[in-house]
């Protein structure tokens, strides 16, 4: 594994087994598939010979039939035919297994490598990307969509390729009896393609509608059941029942419509006609003495092999199209570009902790300004409380400092150096961020605390936990520091998670600490502990706290009141009590 250099836009990269072509979903799938060539070869051989050997049965039944019609049929000869049929079908079974299992291996391999590629790519993406992207969405890509790509190969391609071969058998076997016998199967193939295309083109919009109606019904349903107390409290039961019924009726009607389209499955009619026409044709040739009865039987038998592709196709094709849609989504995600670069040549010195915002403007996707004309100066070691309502821009403000996002206008200086001129790794290593939702891994508490400093000793971990006021509650668990988070219903409260995150920060000892604090303490004792932990964490470093806690606000060196993306007021507690009306209000009983 290597760390990339400045010419690469990704923050990190790992070596994957091979490079892929990301220009289009099909090329991309192909570039994954071609590494599976030995298996593909095996599967293709299986598929083709399976179909070829399938034709042995009608052909030799035809021959046996001819033999039996001779005045003195030779049972020995018929026995030989029977042996050929038996052996060929056993061989066919083996080859069919080769086809099935071959496609299965291809599918599983591709799932593995696609997921690996996606994951490596995600690891390489910037924090900007990860902060904007919903985790649920990423997980859906890494699990469901990747699995769909798997299904595209098995059963998707397996059945399509497996059955397509059967389309060609009558085309090859027919002319061997008489050249004109190619006509019926050829006509079938052409009409079949049109009929199928027509069928799928009217089916697709309807299945989409069915899915959408189901989704609509289902999401309102779960909301109504989850919020049943509100439904009852507002006496809206009957209205909800009406709403559900109308959603259910929409879903019902769409399903009926789908049933109608599916019932008119033309390829099946086509098959019936083909069989009749083919039989007539063969009998006609027989009447003219151009072929014999055995040929008629063999021909008729091979025509019935067309049934396999006729009935399997719908399912298999929709599986493949689902796979392509998923591949498209995965590729989209992979191709989403990163805006930040590492800047490895940049400034890299220990941070003293001075932060300055100069005329900063910021927006996501160049839409409405999230932050407007921010000017703010923070001195080393200060504790700054950032307050404001939801959507006022508090979180965006702090995320600009470690370059989770980059400003649109203006600049931000850390120790007098524009953050964009810092070596990114050096900058981020020295700035620790504790988010609102603290993410913990399903590992031991000790591992979680030591996450940022893998070589920390147990003593160091305990020391950090003590500083963060977490030691006591950790000790209260049966397994103490070895307690695995998430195991056997082990859950932690928001305040406990936050203190574990603080312990992490004590261990890495960052020069700038950014804390998004929105936990609430139920009781005063817990509140005391949280207060203590945060005050301790803020000592000796520049600390920015987004907080709801009046005591944090009260005792901060500097308070920034945000309102609709602007700084509404800034100053010490005393200054703000003097000059800001809304600030005064929150400190009034």
């Amino acid at each position, binding site marked *: *594994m290597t760390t990339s250099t400045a010419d690469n836009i990704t923050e*990190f990269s*790992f070596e994957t087994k091979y490079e892929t072509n990301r220009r289009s979903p099909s090329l991309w799938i192909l570039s994954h598939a071609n590494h599976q060539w030995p298996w593909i070869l095996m599967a293709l051989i299986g598929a083709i010979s399976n179909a070829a050997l399938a034709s042995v049965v009608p052909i*030799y039944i035809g021959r*046996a039939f001819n033999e039996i019609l001779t005045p003195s*049929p030779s*049972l020995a000869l018929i*026995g030989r035919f029977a042996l050929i049929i*038996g052996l*060929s*079908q056993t061989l*066919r*079974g*083996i080859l069919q297994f080769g086809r*099935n*299992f071959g496609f*299965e291996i291809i599918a*599983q391999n591709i799932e*593995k490598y696609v997921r*690996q590629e996606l994951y*490596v790519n995600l690891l390489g993406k910037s924090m900007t990307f990860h902060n904007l992207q919903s*985790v649920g969405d990423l997980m859906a890509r*890494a699990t469901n969509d990747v699995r769909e790509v798997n299904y595209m190969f098995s059963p998707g391609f397996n059945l399509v390729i497996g059955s397509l071969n059967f389309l060609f058998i009558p085309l090859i076997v027919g002319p061997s009896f008489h050249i004109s016998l190619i006509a019926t199967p050829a006509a079938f193939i052409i009409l079949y393609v049109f009929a199928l295309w027509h069928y799928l083109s009217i089916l697709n919009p309807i299945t989409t509608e069915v899915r959408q109606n*189901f989704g609509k019904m*289902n999401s309102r*349903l*779960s*909301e109504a*059941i*989850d919020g*049943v*107390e509100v439904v*009852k*409290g*507002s006496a809206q039961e009957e209205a909800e029942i009406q709403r*559900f019924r109308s959603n*259910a009726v929409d879903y019902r009607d769409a*399903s*009926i419509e789908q*049933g109608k389209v*599916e*019932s008119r499955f033309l390829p*099946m009619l086509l098959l019936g*006609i083909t069989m*009749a026409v083919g039989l*007539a044709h063969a009998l006609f040739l027989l*009447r003219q003495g151009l072929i014999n009865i055995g040929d008629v*039987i063999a021909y008729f038998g091979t025509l019935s092999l067309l049934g396999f592709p006729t009935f399997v196709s719908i399912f298999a094709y929709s599986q493949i199209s689902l796979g392509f849609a998923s591949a498209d989504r995965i590729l989209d995600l992979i191709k989403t570009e990163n805006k930040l670069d590492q800047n490895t040549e940049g400034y890299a010195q220990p941070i003293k902790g001075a932060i300055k915002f100069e005329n900063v403007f910021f927006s996501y996707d160049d839409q409405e300004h999230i932050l407007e004309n921010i000017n703010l100066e923070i001195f080393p070691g200060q504790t700054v409380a950032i*307050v404001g*309502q*939801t*959507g006022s821009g508090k979180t965006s403000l702090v995320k600009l400092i470690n370059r989770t996002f980059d400003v649109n206008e203006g600049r931000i200086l850390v120790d007098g150096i524009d953050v964009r001129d810092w070596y990114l790794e050096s900058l*981020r290593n020295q700035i620790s961020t504790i988010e609102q939702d603290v*993410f913990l891994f399903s590992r031991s508490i000790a591992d979680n605390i030591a996450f940022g400093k893998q070589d920390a000793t147990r003593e160091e971990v305990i020391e950090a936990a003590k500083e963060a006021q977490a030691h006591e509650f950790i000790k209260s668990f049966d397994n103490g520091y070895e307690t695995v988070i998430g195991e056997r219903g082990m859950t932690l409260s928001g305040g406990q998670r936050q203190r574990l995150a603080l312990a*992490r920060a004590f261990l890495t000892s960052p020069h700038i600490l950014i804390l998004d604090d929105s936990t609430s303490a139920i009781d*005063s004792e817990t509140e005391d502990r949280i207060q203590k932990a945060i005050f301790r964490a803020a000592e000796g470093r520049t600390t920015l706290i987004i907080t*709801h806690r009046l*005591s944090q606000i009260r005792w901060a060196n500097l308070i920034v009141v945000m309102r609709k993306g602007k700084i509404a007021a800034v100053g010490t507690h005393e200054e703000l009590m003097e000059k800001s009306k809304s600030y005064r*209000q929150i400190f009034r*009983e």
Partner: protein
Amino acid sequence: MGFFSGLAAEKYDRQYSDKRLLNRIFDYFKKQSNSLIVIGIALIVRSIIEAFNPVIVARGLDQVTQQEISLEFIFILSGIILGLGILSWFANLIYRRFSAKIIAVIIQQLATDAFKASVRQDMSFHDSFQSGKIVSRITSDTREFGQLITLSTDVLMQLISSIILAVILVQTEWRLALAIFILVPLLFLLVMRYRHVARKITREGMRAMANVNATIKETVSGIAIAKNFRQEDKIYDEFEDANQTSFEVNIKRGFALSIVFPVLRTIGGIATALLVYFGAMTVTEGFVTAGAWYLFLSTLDRFLFPVMSLSSFWTNVQTGLSAAERIFALIDAKHSVEQIDSIFPRNLQGQIDMQSVDFSYTPDEPVLEDFSLHIEPGETLALVGHTGAGKTSIGRLIARFYEFQDGEILIDGKDIRRFDLVALRRQMGIVSQVPFLFSGTVEENIQYGCPVCNRPELIRIANQIGDGEWLETLPNGLNTEVGERGSQLSMGQRQLVALMRVLIQRPSIFILDEATASIDPFTEKQIQTALELILSDTTSILIAHRLSTVKSSDRILVMRQGEIIEEGNHSALMAQGEHYAELYNTYFRHQSLEYVEEAKKYVRK
């Protein structure tokens, strides 16, 4: 989720006798009897054609071998085949169209009935049963039952046509027919055995996959934090392990799934070979005609493949029927809250009396015993106490969400059981601890309890709260989409919307289970204003968690284990220095301004 969680049994599940279950199912089909007859006819027509098609070809062959073929014969024979092909397609069309219709209609009716039953159920029911599982009964189980219909008709069709064929074969040559029939039970055993093994592998695979998926999910959600601490290598290794395990499990499963059809194929092939030889023998001995021999050969497959669907049929029937059982259990579950009259309350005064009330959620854990309480019209009452003291239960009983076991609850002097429940609740404003919003706009959510309330009124009230500033902070004001369950709004905004919902409703009785979530101080102030607006002219029961709420009440009840241990207002109770003072120290001290002023000193200690 869905399928497997749906299988779990719940307490309200009941055992239906087969007869009763079939009767319940039959009720739904009864209304569809016309369509059912059409389906039946189409199904029989198709089965007959399926059975006769090879017979006709075989008979035709006999003709061909015995005499000169005339043009007429060719046209008749292929004409019949053509006609049967078209008729079969048409019968299939009718069958599919009508069965799709019946299934859709029945699913819709079942789902609507199940939803109706669950939304009318009282809160004790919803407390005990996870909403996800109820939802899965309403959607997944009904769909599963629908699949049973498709499956049964498909199997029925195969069965009818196989039986017709079997009769014809026996009549043609019983010895050859018998030879074929012996194959069927053998194959059946083989397939059953395979299914057993496959199920085991699949179950193991599923379990392994669940673990792998969990790890993959965790490693994906952990990316951001790993990057923050520069731990990409470590998390990647973890991911790689999970990915590799997933691969290995899937390959094993793939092997089991890949092998079944080839094996059946091979057996079919060998059987055909044997039939070719021994059939030829019977032809040369003169037992059967060559055409009949051909008939046996061409129909062999039709006995092999129904074995596959038959072997899984019984399990599928069981799955489908237990899905039906689960749906009916939901529909039939008993209600515990029952009204005995339907008095329509007009302008309640809001006087509430609880007299010697006994209440428990489960029989052996009493929550309230011999509990009495009088609340004056317009009074604001705060309930405080540790978790489990019974505060929330009082609110829930007055909202009539739960049934109490003994005593009386009177509203304006009338038994609460004698009111029309919907009308009574219209006069109540209830806000639960976690405010719940439905996807839709802020306006739709505010109007939820009062669909006739108009926008100007709504804006007027909204502006009474902090000059309407809270509306300005929403990206699109009243038209802001709140997202699923209100997820696009902050907790504070959700609470404001929930309070607005109550404000426009102008209830006579207000029940608030106060949230404990932390909210920014500005929004907090606005919530307080909204609350004061409601409290001023409504009988209010507040399960209080905030100091400001407690202080604004007329009377504070201190509760412990279902009993009132102290009552009075804030300053009087503080002066007493007993239970309330102690609770204050535990829950409210840190919310006071004195604490804020002293925080720094206090923490230094």
